[in-house]
């Protein structure tokens, strides 16, 4: 039997907009993935720690506070230090196109903006995650 994909859904920063995070978490779970949701108000360091502890294949960062250019790079850096290029990182939220391009340059695999169907996110993870 194939290994289940393990995904950490993470809410960095101070904003409480968790509708998207919860919908995505549930959709991934319904698609047969193992989902760990960090809950709100996490620091980048806490998220990296969770991803390491949970041996995550992917981290989905949900952020709608406008702080993505500060917080996401810190998570990517932390993950690289702890896990090399082992963890796939995707981001969801209100991310302007220019910022999305920059985040991808820094190592984010995909950015999903409001309106993105969960099926697209499920598919993306299935295609791009290499289950260890």
């Amino acid at each position, binding site marked *: 039997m194939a290994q289940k994909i393990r995904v950490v859904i993470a809410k960095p920063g*101070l904003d409480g907009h968790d509708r998207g*995070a*919860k919908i995505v978490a549930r959709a991934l779970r319904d698609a047969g993935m193992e989902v760990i949701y960090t*809950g*709100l108000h996490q620091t980048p360091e806490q998220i990296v720690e969770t991803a390491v502890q949970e041996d995550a294949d992917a981290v989905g960062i949900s952020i709608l506070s406008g702080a993505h250019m500060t917080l996401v790079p810190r998570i990517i850096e932390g993950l690289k230090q702890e896990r090399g290029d082992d963890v796939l990182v995707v981001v969801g939220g209100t991310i302007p196109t220019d910022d999305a391009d920059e985040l991808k340059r820094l190592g984010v695999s995909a950015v999903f903006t*409001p309106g993105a169907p*969960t099926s697209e996110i499920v598919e993306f993870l299935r295609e791009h995650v290499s289950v260890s």
Partner: protein
Amino acid sequence: MATTEDPTHLDSTGKWRRETYDSTPERTDELFTTISGLENEPLYTPDNVAFDYGRDLGYPGLFPYTRGVYPTMYRGQLWTMRQFAGFGTAEETNARFRYLLEHGQTGLSTAFDMPTLMGHDSDAPRSCGEVGREGVAIDSLDDMEMLFAGIPLDRVSTSMTINSPAAMLLAFYVCVGENQLVSRDRLRGTIQTDILKEYIAQKEFIFPPEPSMRLVIDMIEFCAAEMPLWHPVSISGYHIREAGSTAAQELAFTLADGFAYVEACIDRGLDVDEFAPRLSFFFNAHLDFFEEIAKYRAARRIWARELRERYGATNPRSWLMRFHTQTAGVSLTAQQPEVNIVRTALEALAAVLGGTQSLHTNSFDEALALPTENAVRLALRTQQVIAHETGVVNTIDPLGGSYHVEELTNKLEAEAYRYFDRIRELGGVVAAIKENFFQREIADASFRYQSEVERRQRVIVGVNRYELAEEQPVEILKIDPALEQKQIERVRALRARRDTAAVEAALAQLQREAATEDRNLMRSIIEASKAYVTIGEMCDALREVWGVWRETPVF
């Protein structure tokens, strides 16, 4: 006219349905239920709708206020056009405020940044990257003075969207008023302060529910005594809806929160007629046009009835539900963002037909970033078109008596009462929060809706139908990252120049009073504000006494 007493009606609608309607097939590609999942009949007539005009509708300005809270409604005065604004430091937002006032806006509405909402100063490590991003950064009275520079507080009404640290922001506003020689009894406006919906939906909480409720009641008590023109709480369904609830949940949970505040004030020993007239509400305007209109009408009727009958209010002003409305941010799409202008216009129209007292229309670019000035002006112009060009303001509650709207109003009301019973069985709002009741209900509803969208049973133009292969780029507002550093330097400079002994004394007093049950904290918070104690310092002092709240997330 249909009445509940009419025994003579024949089921001609049923006959019509069987013999005429059912012979042609319906479309099956999209749902005919409301966005919230309520069933819609193809047709409403006197046969399938029952209401008693006098009991259920009545007249504008009279109990039960279904048709509107004021006798003249928009023929007397239009709603307040109030665009929520705030970004960067107080200086940038002050400029935006003046811009909006110059373009015909009639009230101010302040958006604070995340660190302010969460009670952290701009130079706190948790604030890194968030200063001035989602709203204006306010650390102390010093910033508040700059925010309202050149804006005479006796001539504007100001709304402030802040909850956990609401008491501090109210104190700052009172102090700015004093500096301008405007006494607190002349200040007009609203501060959100609705902490219950933070635990339920918006999740910007600091302290556990019990001390948070105490702070809310302290503010209500203080305003009842000293700020007769101020609304100390804006009981908010907006965020409940944005978190993914249905219209019925928004209605029910918001009213349940309202009743919880009323009960807490009565427990404090306040007379209901002392404070109830200053409670106000804040609802969402989503896309399901008639459902939204029905929601506002049901809300007014329920509030009036419960305040009069359950809580014994005798002053008619206590029965009135006045509310602000904002169009649904959650309905905006990043795809083909110009289409959001149309969505917002329709939502705003529903709010007006539902009798709102004030309105914020979202800007079309807000699924991407904070709005540009042009986008904000267009959103304001949308309201002005509704007010001045469409004629919908000429007649009060123009949809009153519509079979469909009356039926939906009844249905939403019945749904709300079912939720009130469940919340009561769980032991009240705070107990239900601790059991994750609301959070679970909302998560389920939001997932159901998303699933309908993904199955294309709900069409979202530009998202799951009529997509464009190549999206046109739109101009968006960039917040200068240097503003964060500027604000950090401001708050550090303030700390260096203020009287440290006064700061320490004020914080010690605040902690002493917070540790006892019987002191209203507003006075010591105002004293601390005058000593230029920051929000972060005051909140940290209270965190030490009260602890912090952490939720167990459900999805």
